[in-house]
């Protein structure tokens, strides 16, 4: 009897070391990650359940096996790889051009009130214009080739990215700049060795977030006059009511976005180890 009691006590003391639903408290990482995995499985089973019992018509929601078959077909015919690489190319080019311009302009706006005053109202105006509304204009300006798609991705990304980089630069505490000036450093040296060093992790995170946005603009970019790409495949499938192809396209975009996101998160941890005090 005593033994049973002590075992029970031990159990309860172990479970008392953490409680799952305490406000803001940490839980074991094992449970944290399993929760995420289980939720995916739950959604998958729900999907399987709704489709295999014919609760939902396959026209609106085909089953996982139909999407899998479509995946194998597109992979076999080489369409999938072609679409994915065409989309990846457009995304990367649109985002890289946006970043190359956004970084210096954002740095200028974050450091010099003159540039902030000059450019922020204009950028604020444009960033509320939906990228999809620019499709007709971009066709007039850039034709129907790849450059039109890249231009749409640029418009969708750039104006947000500039403002975010401006904010990253502004996050540098004033005292850090002032103390550097007492060491006799020039404005350029302070900008390079203090402001940019301090703002770099924030800027890197801005890269990750804006690249994610670029993925969400993909379908808009490939809306018109495309002949390849994941977004194009989705739009085409709609015309022929190939719902499984639509779902496959959406899943592919999500998956590729997730991969680029993880690459940035991983390099962030490698590049800025000083953030958690490791060299």
């Amino acid at each position: 009897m005593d033994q049973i009691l002590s075992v029970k006590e031990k159990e309860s003391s172990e479970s008392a070391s953490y409680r799952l639903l305490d406000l803001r408290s940490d839980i074991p990482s094992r449970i944290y990650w399993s929760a995420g995995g289980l939720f995916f499985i739950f959604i998958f089973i729900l999907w399987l359940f709704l489709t295999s019992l014919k609760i939902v018509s396959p026209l609106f929601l085909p089953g996982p096996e139909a999407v899998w078959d479509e995946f194998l077909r597109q992979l076999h015919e080489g369409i999938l790889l072609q679409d994915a690489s065409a989309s990846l190319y457009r995304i990367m080019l649109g985002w890289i051009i946006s970043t190359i311009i956004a970084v210096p302009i954002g740095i200028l706006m974050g450091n010099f009130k003159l540039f902030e005053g000059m450019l922020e109202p204009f950028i604020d105006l444009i960033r509320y214009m939906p990228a999809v509304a620019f499709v007709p204009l971009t066709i007039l300006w850039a034709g129907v080739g790849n450059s039109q798609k890249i231009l749409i991705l640029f418009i969708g990304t750039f104006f947000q990215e500039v403002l975010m980089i401006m904010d990253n630069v502004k996050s540098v505490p004033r005292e850090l700049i002032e103390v550097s000036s007492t060491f006799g450093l020039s404005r350029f040296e302070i900008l390079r060795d203090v402001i940019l060093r301090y703002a770099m992790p924030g800027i890197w995170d801005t890269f990750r977030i804006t690249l994610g946005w670029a993925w969400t603009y993909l379908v808009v970019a490939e809306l018109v006059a495309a002949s390849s790409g994941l977004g194009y495949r989705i739009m085409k499938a709609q015309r022929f009511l190939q719902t499984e192809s639509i779902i496959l396209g959406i899943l592919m975009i999500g998956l590729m976005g997730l991969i680029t996101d993880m690459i940035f998160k991983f390099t962030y941890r490698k590049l800025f180890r000083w953030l958690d005090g490791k060299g």
Partner: protein
Amino acid sequence: MDSPALEISQLSIKFKSNNQKEITAVENVSLNINSNEFVSIIGPSGCGKSTLLRAAAGLERPQFGKIRVDGHMVTHPGADRGMVFQTYTLFPWLTTYENILFSLKKSPLSTPEKEALVYHYIQMIGLEGFENAYPNQLSGGMRQRVAIARALVYQPKILLMDEPFGALDAQTRMSMQELLLDVWEQQRLAVLFVTHDVEEAVILSDRIYVMSNRPGRIKTVIDVELPRPRGLIDLESSPAFLSYKRNLLDLIRQESNFYQKIPLSENIA
């Protein structure tokens, strides 16, 4: 004769407040600090003592008056003055060693000379073993010690300190005062120290300037004639220390009472 380390004459600094009202932060302040003197400025909060210090650092532009460091006019920040702020200003991506080395960027010394100097100062502030620690691994007191070393390593003519121990707890504060006295005995240089803590001012200083309420003027100058080197425990119980303290507290209290008579709207701390 040598020119004083810091010479401030007839300095006035005005600000435009948010509603375009002109506020005089510092009015007609003159003071001299010789090359091995420790001088404090105390006064009620918002009296412009920090503004005065920042002007000496070259971080504020005075409307009127002159500031000279070692005989040279101050127009902008420079390496002839070292500054320690109340907030933590270490570079978070650099270790203790690298933070101190950073301020030697403009120094003409060779690399081995710089390294030796940095290690000398790490020893002086008692942080051997923490050379490779990042600021977020250090306590508040340790961070301020690094900040002091970083401001001293390039051998400025004067050290400007803006309530450097204001954010620390009482225990740490005391040991920091002891450390500062110790460091200063080893490297005698001019220090201008801003604080609102009367005890701290008496413990550290050769001379104390008491500032009036806004607009900040020099109200009184008090020479602190306590023997050096000073040990904190003995000092704080000595009658001389207590009479300085009482005298200063009276002066500050007069200013604080005056402060409360100002209508609330002008009471911008």
